[in-house]
């Protein structure tokens, strides 16, 4: 089974004025389908950079990033956007919902961008997902009317609505209290085990980490180690 994500000796250097800041220095990593992988590390370690490269919103300075079998360096801006639309779901630290759209519309949005589904089919899928994340009662609400946890549930639903093989979540629980954060991780885990969607999320919260099937530790822009998570045993059973 080929890896859904292959990172090969990737480095990323940001230029801030005249100084060059290396964010990643020769990172290699393979992520397989169905994994529920946590990228851990202190802030500034480069874990967000790594997620951005995997999420096709950025390209590496050197090395190769293969997503869903495609080398991101070979793709145009437009093709990268299409790749994100069809193959990747995003969950953000700050939820990032479109404020002017309702809960329902926020979730429906990627489907509308994709096109191809009939209205009925589309609405059915959105409703089912919102039910699954426990927001069936809130379809008409605006994001501003929801709590942080509810907003992040909407974001999860939005990330999953296109049924992408890969979902990226950058510090999904950082802006939530630990209980709510736990619920979000549970929700993600549930989706992972139900559909086999690959989840990659960054965190520095050990409690969140404990849910992962694998933990990749990053320090100083390099992979410090990869270990099976606490959930690995139960996950494989």
């Amino acid at each position, binding site marked *: 089974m080929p890896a859904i994500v292959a990172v090969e000796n990737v480095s990323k250097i940001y230029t801030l004025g005249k100084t060059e800041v290396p964010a990643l220095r020769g990172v290699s990593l393979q992520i397989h389908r169905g994994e529920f992988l946590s990228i851990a590390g202190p802030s500034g370690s480069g874990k*967000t950079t790594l997620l951005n490269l995997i999420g096709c919103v950025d390209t590496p300075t050197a090395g190769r990033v293969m997503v869903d079998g495609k080398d991101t360096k070979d793709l145009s801006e437009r093709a990268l956007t*299409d790749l994100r*639309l069809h193959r990747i779901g995003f969950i953000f630290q700050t939820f990032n*919902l479109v404020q*002017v*759209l309702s809960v329902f*519309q926020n979730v429906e949005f990627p489907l*509308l961008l994709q*096109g191809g589904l009939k209205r009925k089919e589309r609405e059915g899928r959105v409703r089912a997902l919102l039910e699954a994340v426990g927001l069936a009662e809130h379809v008409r609400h605006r994001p501003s009317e929801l709590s942080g946890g509810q907003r992040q549930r909407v974001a999860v639903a939005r990330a999953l609505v296109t049924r992408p093989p890969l979902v990226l979540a*950058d510090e999904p629980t950082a802006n939530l209290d630990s209980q709510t954060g736990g619920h979000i991780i549970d929700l993600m885990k549930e989706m992972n085990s139900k559909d086999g969607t690959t989840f990659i999320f960054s965190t520095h919260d050990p409690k969140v980490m404990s849910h992962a099937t694998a933990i990749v530790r990053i320090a100083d822009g390099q992979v410090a180690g990869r270990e099976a998570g606490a959930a690995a045993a139960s996950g494989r059973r």
Partner: protein
Amino acid sequence: MRSRAGAVGVLVQIAFRNLFASTAKTLIVGGIILVGALLVVVGSSLLDTVDRGMRGSIQGSLAGHLQVYNARSKDDLALYGGMTGESQLEVIPDFAALKAVLEKVANVKDVVPMGIDQAMVSTGNELDVALEKLREDVRRRETGDASAERRRQYEAHKAHVRRMTELLQAELRESRSIADEKYLREREAEWKDLDRATAGAFWDGFDRDPLASLEFLENRVAPLSLSNGFTFIRYAGTDLDAYQRGFDRMRIVEGTTVPKGQRGILLGKLYAEDWLKLKTARRLDRIRDALHVQKKRIAEDEELSRWVKENQAATRDILMQLDPLRAEEATRRLRAALRSSRTDLHELLVELLTTDDRNFDERYAIFYRDLAPLLQLYMVKVGDSITIKAPSKSGYMSSVNVKVYGFAEFRGLEKSALAGIMSLMDLVSWRDLYGYVTAEKAAEIREIQRGAGARDLPREQAEAALFGSAAPAAVATGRAVRIDDPVLAGVAKRKADAALYSRVYSQAEIDHGVALNAAVTLHDPARLRQSMKDVKDALARAGMDMKVVDWQKASGLVGQFVSLARIILYTAVFIIFAVALVIINNAMVMATLQRVKEIGTVRAIGAQKRFVLAMLLLETGVVGVAFGVVGAALGAGVVWLIRARGGIPATNDQLYFFYSGPSLIPELGTASLGVALAIVAVVSLLSGVYPALLATRVTPLEAMQSGDD
């Protein structure tokens, strides 16, 4: 496919909801667009109306659509006079030939010959007027009217004239006291005449031969009057019949048109008001205008106060007009109207004319109700004949007597000193005055002058002149012959004039002869450019060396006003929208910067750049169109309101001219609405482009930044 519609749907929804989400921005941007659209609609409606009005006034009064004149002219044609007086034009040698060529051009409706010039009008004096009345009395007595009333009037008029000759003698005595020997010797005969006219013996013997006595007074004494004045008149000599067919703005306010083919003049109403009206009455009119139209006050306005003082001082003009009978009547009426105990007419007049803001309207009414019917308000009446003098081409004065058939004004130009002061005269009289006559008439005159043998026009050339020729330039010198010396005088002239007035000229006589310019009117003015070219081509083919200009160029400064007003509005609109563009652009850039995270998120989720571009353009577009439509509608409302309230009043003569009437009643053109909406659409689109392009540069990375959204 369905989903494309879905994407567009969500785009529209995002765009609309963003507008409502950021109300402040939307209202600022929308407000600017609204005001802009409103201004464009109102401004262009007003201007279109001004434009149409002025265009109509100028085209319909004198200019027509095109003007044709001799290309060898030294100056450009300036229908309303140039900076340095009348333009020096070379004549069109044979108008008929020109007309024949022009009338064949498509779209040409009428071709009207013209000759515009300034001349002096001898306005006569009070003595002439009094003598005229006396002559009328004598005529009636001779036809057998011997009533006591007639007798009384005759005696009163006689006394009036006698008193005037005495006054004249007194005036002349004063001027003689400062004159030198030579002058006195030259004028010895005049002084003797005056002595005779004031002597008791003359008046005692008046009734024995009243006609001879009148003749003496009219021919020998009246010309001595110092107040014998001239005024300048600006007139267009034209084929009056063709003129009335081709021009619609001329309106006869008093009298009639000149009968077809006859000599005559229609005096400009404004000219009559300004130059021929009794100065006192004219000043009263102007004060009234200033008070009621321009809302000035006598107490606060230096000019008005001066007019009041001048009226108080100038009672002589009125007193001179009144014979003893009328003076008595005037005294009676003024005493009653003013409830005054004064008995001296001069004092009563001063009292009447001592006006202020409070009593002006009352005094004005008294003047016109009680006094005016006793006076001759205008120095020239309909039916009078006036003498017009002008330096002819060779420098000598030539003069013609023409009968005044009426007073005319030009609709829209009633108060324009520049364009509305024109009088209209028949073309034949103009030719006499200007010093050009037809070749035939010149030959005739020469024959009379030199006897049958003396011909200086060879037969072949005369024939060529009659039947037209391939070389009009060569004929010109033979055809245009000057006559410079009017000889007739006195009774003989009176008879000659009468014969001249009743002479009817045929169309051929009017057409075959010189003109200075030809006005061309078109069936379809919209095709002016094309017709101008056609006319030029036709003239070139016919070998006529003529210049063709459009009405605007021909009307010189006056025509420029139309363009000027337009340029001012366009500049204003341009500035307004340039400012609007900058403000809207700034507001949209700010709004875009505030939405960087949202845009980044949308991009990260998978929206292409073009989606973002469309979203932002749609936002400004929607604001532009929505507020633009509302602004245009409000503008239409303002225009409607102005119309409902009777338009914008012209508070001075300049505005009267711009408005082509007493008030500007704007018309809402679909064109101005369309233009307003188009401008608004373009401006909002332009101002939205930069922020939208800026938004497409937002990368998905922006979505990853932490911080509240």
